[in-house]
C-alpha cells in the first residue's frame, strides 16, 4: 500500500461517515553498534487500527552520511504480517510498499532492530494510524475490503 492509497482509505471512511481518528507517531532512534531494541505499538481497548509505517533515511551519527547496507535494518511483524526483514537498501528505502496491517484490540505491531554496523546510526519511523471503534469495524471492513487484506477477523 502506498501513502496515496492510505489517503484514499481515509477519504472513503469520511465519505461513508465511518467514525474514526487519524494520527501518527514519529520516533527517532539513535542506536550504538551492537545494540538492539523492540518497539511494540497497539490500540486502546475497544478500538481497531489500520496501521501504515513509513521510514526515513538512516544516517551515520558521526559523518551524517546516509547508510545503505544490508547489515542495517529491522524485523517487523503485525497480527496479519509475518516476521520479515527490511534492510536499508535502495529497493526498499526509495520505494513505498505494503507496510500496512490491521491491529485488533489486545494485539500489537512490532519492530525489532539490531545495529550490526560498526557505527552509531540515527533513523526515524512514523506509524500512521487510523483508529476505528470496534462496533464500526465490520462496516469499515466492507467499505475497505478491496484495499486491505488480513482484515477478516
Amino acid at each position, binding site marked *: 500500500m502506498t501513502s496515496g492509497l492510505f489517503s484514499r482509505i481515509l477519504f472513503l471512511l469520511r465519505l461513508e461517515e465511518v467514525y474514526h481518528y487519524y*494520527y501518527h507517531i514519529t*520516533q*527517532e532512534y539513535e542506536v550504538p553498534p551492537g545494540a538492539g531494541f523492540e*518497539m*511494540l505499538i*497497539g490500540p*486502546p481497548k475497544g478500538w481497531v487500527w489500520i496501521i501504515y509505517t513509513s521510514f526515513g533515511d538512516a544516517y551515520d551519527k558521526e559523518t551524517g552520511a546516509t547508510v545503505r547496507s544490508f547489515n542495517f535494518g529491522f524485523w517487523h511483524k503485525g497480527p496479519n504480517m509475518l516476521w520479515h526483514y527490511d534492510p536499508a537498501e535502495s529497493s526498499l528505502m526509495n520505494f513505498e510498499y505494503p507496510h500496512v496491517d490491521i491491529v485488533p484490540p489486545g494485539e500489537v505491531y512490532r519492530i525489532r532492530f539490531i545495529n550490526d554496523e560498526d557505527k552509531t546510526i540515527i533513523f526515524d519511523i512514523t506509524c500512521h494510524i487510523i483508529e476505528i471503534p470496534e462496533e464500526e469495524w465490520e462496516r469499515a471492513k466492507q467499505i475497505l475490503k478491496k484495499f486491505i487484506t488480513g482484515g477478516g477477523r
Partner: protein
Amino acid sequence: MEEKVIKVRFKPPKRQIVFQVKPVTKNTRIEVKEK
C-alpha cells in the same frame, strides 16, 4: 562490558495506546526523550 544506550525521541499521542520500547541486547538501556 560497556553499557549501550539507545536514545528514543517522540511526542506521545493524546491517547492511551500501547507503546513500549525495550532492549533486546545485553547491557543495553533505553533512554526516552519526549521532545
